[in-house]
């Protein structure tokens, strides 16, 4: 359980760092962005100004450390501040609407992409001297370098604009009654292109990592032993090769999760998908700093938790880790 304790420690510390960054970034910026904003927003309601002041400690006479303490305290109470663009809605309430969409879309897409990518990676490593394998590797090396948002644009152009199979954006048809079957299918139909974008863009990474891990594992003695034992190829491929190769892949998965989530945010922006990503974009556009920071915190927390889940997966799969070893 030492492993467990260490991972929880790291998780909490990372959260703490994210929170701290969140506090200090606006305060460390040259030329006081909050004051700038206040100066620029002369026409806005006084309460909004108060919200900004509170969020940034403008005019506050407290020393930085006291401000930091107050900030932490508020955070613990679940108080993330008040949104500027949707004044006077509290930030967490604004976020609440967006979170399910993002979790649904990105969660599903990431899981599909990981499993599909891993499977293809196993396949191309197993038959690595075939033309098809080389072609797949080459193709995904290229596709992996597409920016997420660009691939999204491409899919919109071809599959929603030229051939109007899918909707251009949004997450559902607004006129539909929530909770009906029709609504459900509409949600599904709207999610396909954004999900496809995330899957295609992120799959390359899993394919290539899994392929490399597999090739390394296939050179191990225990694979030769398994062949010598006359085990069925399927068993060698899964229990001997893939089960070992997937361990570093999961670590890699956890590590690049932040990157995938970033890509997911961009995808939402392009598809005007009403999730956290689009909200972040709007917050940036409207300089809704409290909302923006809350989103950053939420995403960090989500990625950290996902990382933790990956660590637990390793714990389950690798007996060496279970014993607290390497």
């Amino acid at each position, binding site marked *: 359980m030492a492993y467990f304790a260490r991972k929880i420690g790291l998780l909490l510390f990372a959260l703490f760092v994210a929170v701290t960054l969140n506090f200090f970034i606006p305060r460390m910026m040259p030329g006081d962005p909050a004051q700038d904003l206040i100066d620029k927003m002369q026409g806005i309601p006084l309460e909004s100004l108060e919200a900004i002041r509170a969020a940034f400690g403008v005019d506050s006479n407290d020393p930085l450390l006291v401000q930091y303490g107050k900030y932490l305290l508020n955070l613990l109470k679940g108080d993330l501040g008040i949104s500027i663009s949707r004044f006077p809605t509290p930030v967490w309430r604004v976020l609440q609407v967006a979170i399910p969409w993002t979790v649904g879309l990105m969660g599903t897409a990431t899981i599909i992409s990981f499993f599909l990518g891993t499977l293809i990676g196993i396949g191309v490593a197993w038959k690595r001297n075939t033309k098809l394998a080389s072609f797949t590797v080459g193709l995904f090396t290229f596709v992996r370098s597409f920016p997420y948002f660009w691939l999204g644009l491409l899919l919109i152009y071809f599959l929603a604009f030229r051939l109007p199979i899918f909707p251009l954006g949004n997450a559902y048809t607004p006129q539909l009654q929530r909770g009906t079957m029709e609504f459900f299918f509409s949600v599904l139909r709207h999610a396909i292109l954004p999900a496809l974008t995330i899957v295609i863009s992120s799959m390359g990474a899993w394919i290539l990592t899994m392929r490399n891990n597999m090739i390394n594992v296939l050179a191990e003695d225990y694979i030769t032993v398994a062949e010598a034992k006359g085990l069925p190829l399927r068993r060698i491929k899964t229990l001997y090769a893939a*089960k070992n190769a997937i361990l570093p892949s999961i670590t890699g998965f956890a590590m690049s999760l932040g990157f995938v989530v970033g890509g997911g945010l961009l995808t939402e922006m392009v598809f005007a998908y009403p999730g956290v990503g689009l909200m972040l974009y709007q917050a940036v556009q409207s300089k809704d700093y409290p909302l923006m920071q809350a989103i950053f915190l939420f995403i960090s927390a989500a990625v950290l938790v996902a990382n933790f889940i990956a660590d637990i997966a390793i714990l389950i799969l690798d007996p060496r880790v279970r014993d607290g070893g390497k």
Partner: protein
Amino acid sequence: MIELDRLEMTPLLQCKNLVAGYRIKSGFVHAVDDVSFDLDRGGFLGIAGESGCGKSTLAYAIMRLLKDNATIESGSLLFKGADLAKLDEEQMKKIRWVDISMAFQSAMNALNPVLSVGEQLTDAIHAHEEATQSDARKRALEVLKLVDIPKDRFNSYPHQLSGGMKQRVMIAMALILNPELIIMDEPTTALDVVVQRTIIEKIQELRKTLGFSVIFITHDLSLLVEISDTLAIMYAGKIVEYGASESLFNRPLHPYTKGLMNSFPSLTGMIKRMGGIEGKPPDLLKPPEGCRFHPRCPQAIPICRESCPSLEEIADRHSVACFLHKGAEIL
């Protein structure tokens, strides 16, 4: 009765003029070049030589486990009437582990780290016969007992075992289908002397009770002399000397064998200056003309540079491939 006797008389494995190696960009590497030997039922054949002399390629060729670009070019491997060199993959699969199994150099890497000892033992059974879980488990526990590993280790993972234990698990695994031949590729090299000795004594004991044959590959000639009945000394892909261990130890004929014998100081005998062999084995991509050992041979004569001596029987069960002994009778 006579038929049966004849069957008993034929060697278990007859390797005839085997040529195997691997193809690389610049040509064919003759890792095993025209190798012939017989292995009797219940026999213990030791194969010794420096690293890169083709010992491991030979082992993998017998198991037909040569990787990627490595192939058997010609020759035959008669095993109980079938030529292993010509069987197709399906037929070979039926022989592997059932009739011929293998123990590897480093048990550390030869055991799958994410499967328990029990799973790895039983999956060999399930791969070759219909057996229930509990039957397979029972047999696995039996072989574990043979190598003195307590029952409760059945559910252990490799990293929970010590080096010596892992090697014994490896041997248990090789025994599990009761094969007639076990090929051991440096099974004890990575172990400490005391543990190594324990395992070797165990192998000898099991061989007596279970009656399997062993091909034992190592570079440690002093160990091999003690444990094997027959010895083959390999150099640069060829067997240069072959015969009964005692005969080879007491009267090494080939200068290479002599050199190897001179490469380990004795523990209790007189301390004398030892020489070893100068130089290094040749590049098998372009081995030297004539006898492959002549550039390093202290006793080379002109003919050694021109032609390659063949392996000839000089005394009873003692052959050597060297011009110094050509035609000469050893009394």
